């Protein structure tokens, strides 16, 4: 299924690419520029031709990029995950290093190495032009898909969750719709790949619409305490609630029956 999806998207991309005859020359220039950038910024770990580098122990130092497609590069570089500052269990999201043009060039180069999904068009994830009613239905459907497929790792509000051995499913709120779409499509790091056969494009759009709705909706219930569930609630109950009430108990017990300090002193 997974491979089928990848092949399908890759195949579609290949089929569509020659149609853009006018841009083929620009495309070639872009790939060339991308290769130059790649040799400087990426080849050290991923190999001079994106073939990947193994450690002496035989594990991956930098995985092969021959069939990851432009979408993977656009996601990893566009969210600052690549290039990594240091090898580790997880590439954290950080400040973006490359400009949009450079990212496009890198994507084009890596896409030229083999198959793989292309960068999705905006119409795949944008709700622009849809009626309010349609968007509402999309959000409802997206919420159910989100709860079934995403919350197990990313938490019920997309606040993130722990993964084994220091890894984590990152917070996915406030992330570009395009990047969420690409993440589902390419399955970065420990994430599963949700191919179009698994979650069709319109369902991916629904999930994105639900996440955007979460971002836009007011917090009906007050401060959300990080939206982490009962742990942060317990901390507030103890530190805030019990802390405050014990403070009040101390305050009440510290006051005698006298209504003013003067009388109290006179009595003493």
């Amino acid at each position, binding site marked *: 299924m997974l491979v089928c999806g990848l092949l399908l998207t890759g195949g579609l991309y290949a089929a569509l690419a020659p149609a853009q005859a006018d841009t083929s020359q620009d495309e070639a220039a872009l790939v060339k520029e991308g290769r130059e950038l790649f040799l400087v910024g990426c080849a050290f770990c991923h190999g001079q031709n994106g073939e990947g580098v193994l450690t002496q122990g035989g594990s991956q130092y930098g995985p092969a990029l021959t069939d990851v497609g432009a979408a993977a590069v656009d996601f990893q570089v566009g969210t600052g995950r690549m290039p990594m500052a240091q090898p580790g*269990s997880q590439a954290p999201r950080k400040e973006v290093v490359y400009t949009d043009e450079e990212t496009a060039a890198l994507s084009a180069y890596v896409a030229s190495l083999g198959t793989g999904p292309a960068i999705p068009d905006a119409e795949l994830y944008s709700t622009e032009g849809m009626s309010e009613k349609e968007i*509402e*239905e999309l*959000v*409802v459907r997206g*919420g*159910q898909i989100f*709860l*079934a497929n995403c*919350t*197990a*790792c*990313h*938490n*019920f*509000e997309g*606040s*993130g*969750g*722990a*993964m*084994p*051995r*220091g890894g*984590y*499913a990152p917070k996915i709120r406030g992330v570009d719709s395009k990047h969420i779409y690409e993440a589902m499509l390419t399955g970065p790091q420990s994430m599963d790949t949700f191919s179009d056969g698994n979650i069709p494009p319109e369902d991916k759009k629904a999930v994105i619409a*639900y996440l955007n*709705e*979460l971002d836009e909706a007011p917090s*009906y*219930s*007050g*401060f*959300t*305490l990080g*939206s*982490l*569930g*009962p*742990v*942060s*609630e*317990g901390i*507030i*109950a*103890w530190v*805030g*609630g*019990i802390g*405050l*009430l*014990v403070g*009040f*108990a*101390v305050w*009440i*017990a*510290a006051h*005698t*029956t006298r209504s003013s300090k003067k009388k109290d002193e006179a009595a003493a």
Partner: protein
Amino acid sequence: MSVDVSKVATTNGTTPATAKGGKAAGAIANWADERLGLGTAMKKNIRKVFPDHWSFMLGEIALWSFVVVLLTGVFLTLWFDPSMTEIQYDGAYDPLRGVHMSSAYASSLDISFDVRGGLLMRQMHHWGAMIFIASMMIHMLRVYLTGAFRKPRELNWIIGCLLLLLGTIEGFTGYSLPDDLLSGTGVRAADGFMKASPVVGSYMSFFLFGGEFPGDAIIPRFYAMHILLIPGLLLALVAAHMLLLVYHKHTQWPGPGRTEQNVVGYPMLPVYAAKAGGFFFIVFGTIAVMGGLFSINAVWKYGPYDPSKVTAGSQPDWYMGWPDGLLRIIPAWETHIWGITLSWNVMIPILVMPPLMLMILMALPFIESWITGDKREHHLLQRPRNAPTRTAIMVALMTFYGLSWAAGGNDIIAIKLHLSINQITYFMRGAVFIGPVIAFIITRRWCISLQRHDEGKLLHGYETGVLVRSPEGGYAEKHLPLPQGQAYTLTARDDDPTPETVEEIDASGATGRTARLRKLRAKLATVFFADNVQKPTAEELHDAQHHAEHELHELESQIAAGPNRHGPADH
């Protein structure tokens, strides 16, 4: 012999004497008194004295938060529909409109979005419940650490432990009622725990759920328990707890004028009623503010329960956190025998540890009085430092509890502190065993150091902060004797009893089991009291006083001599 009859009534009047003044209020009170006998009933209790100390009000937080939870709970029952009938939601919350869900979940959403003030009530109910159990726990710590559980209050201690247990079960059933994803995950976990009981597990599960999980009976059943059975038991036990409190009278801290036979404090009316009544409003207000400001269990975010779904950060409410933590850190131990699987990894943390901890808790007063042989009544409290082993036992238990509790949040700790969840788990596996031992040793020695400090204050006075340079050029701080009241308070405690020795037991001619038990007890008592500092004897205090007077004279003459021995400054 003449008798003065001027003050004796000359007739038997036909009209009863009536209270003067007050008019309307007095008339109503009189009317009620004549019919209900309130005056006689209240005469004794209206001036009942309660001692004043902040730590005596912790139980009150529990009482008042329970009242808040009852009030808000009644409000919620008016709209909550405890049914697992599947319906299609068409309420005000857009992102779930049209989704199939149980009536219970739909009515939780309605309470949150369509009932005026409903969300505030839900949040107050939940915050109130969290504070109810938390305050029971800190109240229990206070009672234990001050020795207030000793005779005659052991039974009230047990009632308190049962209240804590019932509060926890009440909390769990309430957590399960909204039938959102988090609730359902909790119920599923409970189902798994039951099924982990050898042999009878699956029968118990089928019995509770009325068939295979989840069925359609669990929510109504939990509802009956949550709003009827457990609150009824809680109310009855709270009443018993408070009646015993009144009967035993409140404990008090030692001090001048305070004995085992009296209670020094303020009367119920007007002082204590005002303080306690005021505290009710403070507790109510605090919970209302929390309910208004802080989100708790935002059920609409979790979606309806569906056994195929789960969310990261699925945790029980805090009071169930410690068994959950043990469950998270225990290695995956299982035994397969005669076609039966014994899941030690579930049985030990969930089916063995919580009942065991409760038993230990309930047994603490009896274990201590057996070891110390102390069967006397106690109404004066002990400072935690004056019972170092007792204090250390509780701190060790607290450490075990706290570490298990933290392990229950291992995933949140991992993502927030950038740690590996595996490393936290490995650390906790060792820490739950080693931590309490370290805590025990540190606490015990800390208490003994504080006892020594008290002894130092009694025998050598308090530190004045006055530094005196001797003719040789050395510096020393002058100490002055404690005020008499403080010295009395520090010495108003019993000496620890001297445990029997093995020789004494042998000499007494005891044999067999009795002798063995007595020897065990003697050994335990020796350990229990080892290294404790006893209060100074009267002679020691007398000598100290004498010495202090001498010091004071010396200090005064030194001050009079001035810093450079030029005599008193003349101005």
